[in-house]
């Protein structure tokens, strides 16, 4: 059942005589002294709070709700990493803006629904961000102007466990300089 240590001969002899007799011999002397190194330590943890990134919009054109550039999301089918044809006009609007403003950079954040491993979903979100980046590349936007990253399942737009909700979360978002 278990490990047994070597028992001092004296103790054994005494115990084998009569197990129920309490011993009052100086057993305390054989207690191992661990004073040389501090026996018990309480590790410290220091709290860190990262600075908030500076927000704010780059220009009105990108945020004005009446501008098509204010629409920043493209959506994907379940288990799909291919842009839907219905997304193409929006991609073209953003490509034109980027080509006309070579000093402005775009961050594409890919997302995945919440089912399964967080890190694997991060990789799936990356595939969606990369699909959007390649579509912009084809419309003349150089890679130097775009970074595609993934937020995986970490930033769901919708948190119910339903297909309608998961569809909202299978998307890629476009952010411009000043927004990330």
């Amino acid at each position, binding site marked *: 059942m278990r490990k047994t240590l070597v028992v001092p001969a004296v103790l054994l002899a005494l115990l084998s005589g009569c197990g129920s007799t309490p011993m*009052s011999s100086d057993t305390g002397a054989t207690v191992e002294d661990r004073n040389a190194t501090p026996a018990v330590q309480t590790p410290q943890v220091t709290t860190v709070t990262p600075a908030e990134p500076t927000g704010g919009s780059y220009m009105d054109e990108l945020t004005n709700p009446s501008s098509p550039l204010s629409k920043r999301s493209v959506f994907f089918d379940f288990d799909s990493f291919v842009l839907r044809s219905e997304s193409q006009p929006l991609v073209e609007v953003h490509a034109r803006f980027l080509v006309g403003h070579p000093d402005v950079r775009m961050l594409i954040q890919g997302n995945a629904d919440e089912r399964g491993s967080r890190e694997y979903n991060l990789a799936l979100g990356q595939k969606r961000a990369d699909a959007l980046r390649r579509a912009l590349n084809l419309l003349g936007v150089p890679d130097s102007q775009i970074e595609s990253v993934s937020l995986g399942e970490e930033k769901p737009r919708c948190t119910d466990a339903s297909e309608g909700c998961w569809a909202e979360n299978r998307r890629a978002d476009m952010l411009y300089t000043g927004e990330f």
Partner: protein
Amino acid sequence: MKHKLFAHILLLAMLLASIAGARAQLAIEITGAGANQIPVAIARFDGESVLAGGVTDVVRADLRRSGLFSLIETGPQPISETAVPDLVNFRIRGADAMLVGSVVAMEGKRYEVRFRLFDTQRQAELGALALRMNEGQQRATGHRIADFVYEKLTGLPGVFSTRIAYVVKTGERYQLQIADADGENPQTALASREPIISPAWSPDGSKLAYVSFEAKKPVIYIHSLASGLRSVVANFKGSNSAPAWSPDGSKLAIVLTKDGQSQLYTVNADGSGVKRIASSAGIDTEPFWSGDWIYFTSDRGGTPQIYRVTPTGGNLQRVTFDGSYNVTPRPSPDGSSLAFITRSGGRFQVAVMDLASRQVTILTDTSRDESPSFAPNGRMILYATETGGRGVLAAVSSDGRVKQRLSVKAADVREPAWGPLPR
């Protein structure tokens, strides 16, 4: 040996009236216990009342929570280690082992805690120890005593003095927390408005590597827990994620997208010397470094499965074959088995594979399991799951018998990582 299954629920928090209730703290429920519990008598230590809360309550709570021990009543009378206790009497009461001891006040609010463990059947001493402690360290001391008892009676090191890391999400706030293995003493290492995932303990337990989204993208940091000093390990163009320490703590296996899809690299802990170690046309992610292997998840075969490769990128082997979704490989500390998440019938569950026979056993009856993490003695697996729409942590023994649930009120808890044995 008793073959009793304990059905009662223990709320550990109740044992700790002295802890302020305001802090978000993990409460542990035991939902299953080992089939062969060792009955053990933990006497009150002579003089322990000089310490607020004493030490033996901590020892008892630890041993009970492990699911491997049942506790035999010893009564209110303290029993010192200076004399051999009435072992026959405690054997008759059902105890296989008995712990006795004393607390002696020393100069400068220091204390010495001396204790002896006896085998009541063979009437033999199993070992003795004296620990010196400062005032206020009675919980840490109690964990050390429980570790001693656990190791003497099971042959495996106890993990009561270890710490766990996990992420708590409260509203839109994320906190990377470190707590004792019993959920006590939670401390926040990082508080952020952006997600934090994939914490990984350095082998010496002094640092955590993790992925933080505070820069609006995944970036890998190393965080020294005592000082709070952080350094960026990888912030390349694209996503940086899934850090895993090498066994000597000098390197990490990581996942980068700087050259295309998510692929495996190694990097020195100071961020230098990035090397690609595998290439695929698909996703390679979730590396875990174990001895001479790096285990990882890849969909190169069409569905996500577990593979392994040497740290220099050689000898690639596929490890899982059954099912269409096997992810998050986490080898046991001795490298003999592999915990991972498998999907079947729409459920995501913790499974364990014996690496010699390749036999797979599903360990849990939950259905949204993620992020398994072995205790450093290989006996328990901590993982994240969901109950009632809320993220909780759970633990299951590697034989599937002992089960625990760890939750924080009104918060989501996820991404657990069990720290190493203290040095």
